[in-house]
């Protein structure tokens, strides 16, 4: 990618200079985003594809330290920790992604409804957001999980119900501000209907916010899923969710099996960090103004 740049110096002569255009930031960001997305998807697929016998009980080599054969070591029942962690990780990612998707869609619908609807609807939505934010997230999730008999359904609904509020408030504020812009008033005077304005003016502005908001919600949702299963809600014990692996590892901490707690948590943190970076990079690509560091 050679680019001919003409630079003027003091004396006014033009210095023609070819200079190898360093890989501009845009392509670097694109490559980084694709890379991160690939890692996350592979973790997801790896987890789903791992066969059951890889995580089967094998008392022969129980309580082994991390070795080449068992990179994360094995637990007190001889189950390979690495395989269980990857399986658990894919469950965490799926639950996190699905729950975030549900709450993000809810956030957009409620946010836009509050901004475009009647004053009463707007104040009701604000009251509702205060209500949901009033009860600590985990307490609300415990209640919802309890009401659904502590299965995956309760976990999904619980996380979805507690995550839409901040994005809804952000979208509502954004739409309210947009509707007050002059070019919207002009559009009305050009005979355009509210629906046309919503589709042509407001949505194109909201989509980047929505996509970035959605991606940035994944890490939180995954952390919540892990926390809730750690407390014993959500998935049945035999399912290898990260939260469950870690809560079971507590019993064996004092007996020196530190790897039971260390590695699953570490992989979870890595995935969360990767997702955060994915969100930031996407934000840079989609919405350059706001990302101007």
């Amino acid at each position: 990618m050679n680019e001919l740049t003409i630079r003027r110096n003091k004396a006014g002569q033009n210095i023609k200079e070819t200079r190898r255009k360093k890989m501009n930031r845009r392509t670097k960001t694109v490559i980084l985003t694709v890379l991160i997305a690939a890692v996350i998807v592979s973790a997801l697929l790896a987890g789903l594809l791992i066969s059951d016998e890889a995580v089967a009980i094998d008392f022969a080599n129980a309580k082994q330290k991390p070795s080449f054969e068992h990179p994360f070591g094995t637990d007190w029942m001889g189950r390979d920790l690495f395989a269980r962690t990857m399986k658990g990780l894919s469950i965490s990612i799926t639950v996190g992604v699905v729950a975030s998707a549900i709450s993000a869609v809810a956030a957009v619908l409620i946010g836009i409804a509050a901004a475009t609807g009647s004053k009463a609807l707007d104040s009701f939505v604000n009251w509702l957001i205060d209500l949901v934010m009033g009860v600590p997230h985990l307490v609300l999730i415990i209640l919802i999980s309890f009401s659904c008999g502590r299965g995956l359904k309760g976990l999904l609904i619980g996380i979805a119900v507690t995550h839409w509020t901040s994005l809804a408030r952000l979208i509502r504020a954004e739409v309210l501000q947009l509707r007050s812009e002059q070019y919207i008033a002009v559009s009305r005077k050009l005979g355009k209907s509210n629906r046309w304005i919503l589709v042509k003016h407001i949505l194109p502005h909201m989509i980047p916010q929505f996509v970035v908001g959605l991606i940035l919600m994944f890490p939180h949702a995954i952390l919540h899923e892990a926390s809730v299963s750690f407390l014993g809600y959500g998935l049945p014990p035999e399912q290898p969710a990260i939260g469950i692996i870690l809560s079971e590892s507590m019993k064996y901490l004092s007996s020196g099996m530190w790897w039971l707690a260390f590695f699953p948590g570490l992989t979870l943190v890595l995935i969360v960090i990767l997702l955060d970076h994915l969100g930031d990079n996407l934000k840079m690509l989609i919405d350059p103004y706001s990302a101007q560091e």
Partner: protein
Amino acid sequence: MVCEHKHLLDVQNLSVSFRMYDSGLEQKELKVISDLSVSIDRGEILAIAGSSGSGKSLLAHAILGILPENATARGNMRYKGEIMTPEYQEKLRGRQIALVPQSVSYLDPLMSIERQVLGAGKNAKERKPALKNIFGRLQLNESDGRLYPYQLSGGMARRVLVSTAVIGDAELIIADEPTPGMQKQQALEALKIFRELADEGKGVLLITHDVDLALEFADKIAVFYAGTTLELASSKDFRGGEASLRHPYSKALWRAMPQNGFEPLDGFQPYAENLPSGCLFAPRCEMCSERCKTEIPEMRELRDGFVRCFHAT
């Protein structure tokens, strides 16, 4: 442009450029001020007139040395004959050189007007007694001191901003667009204070896009175009009609004014991203020669004004 007596402020070939990110996240260099030369003496009001958004406010920030990090300034500036190094600028800011900014957003929203006008540090106490008559001079009464910026009307906000400069007893006052969209009478009334300051021997640099107002009020006018000054003329040259002006752009400006001919010149001002090489006005100039296209004309003296053009007479 060598001159014997020392100007209050002398700017030589100042260039200010910005590192910006465009949509493609590619970093570009935006030359917002290029080879600008201008000078001000005591007791004089110099207006810098040019269309809005062409970087005039940046000139004020460059003089005060408060450009943002992603900006680089080249060329040299002298205050009372002394090179303005960053350290010297820091000593001058707020004491010798005062800025009157554009809008009320330059006032701290959570601080009362009085505390802001008095300023910080030890000189705040010294200035306390002077506050009363400064407010009087600007038709602000004592009680206004307790107000907060959001409670000020447009007019009051402007007078408060002017008082921040007047109280500091600075010798050079830079007013950045002090009369936005004001009618002629209102504007002249608001600018009366600057005439008083000039008569007291201070230098006043008035940055405005209202050429009309500049002609009526300022002593000298610097015609600002695409980031540089093309001509430095006294306002009576402008009143003297097209013939007494020097640069083809100043003549085009004069012809385009409603009260003169209202005849527009074709073409547009060049953008900071792709400035033409050579004279910036070349693409629109009928006297444009080969030399204009390749070489940047220097400011030269002509009929006791200055012009940046090879062919001006």
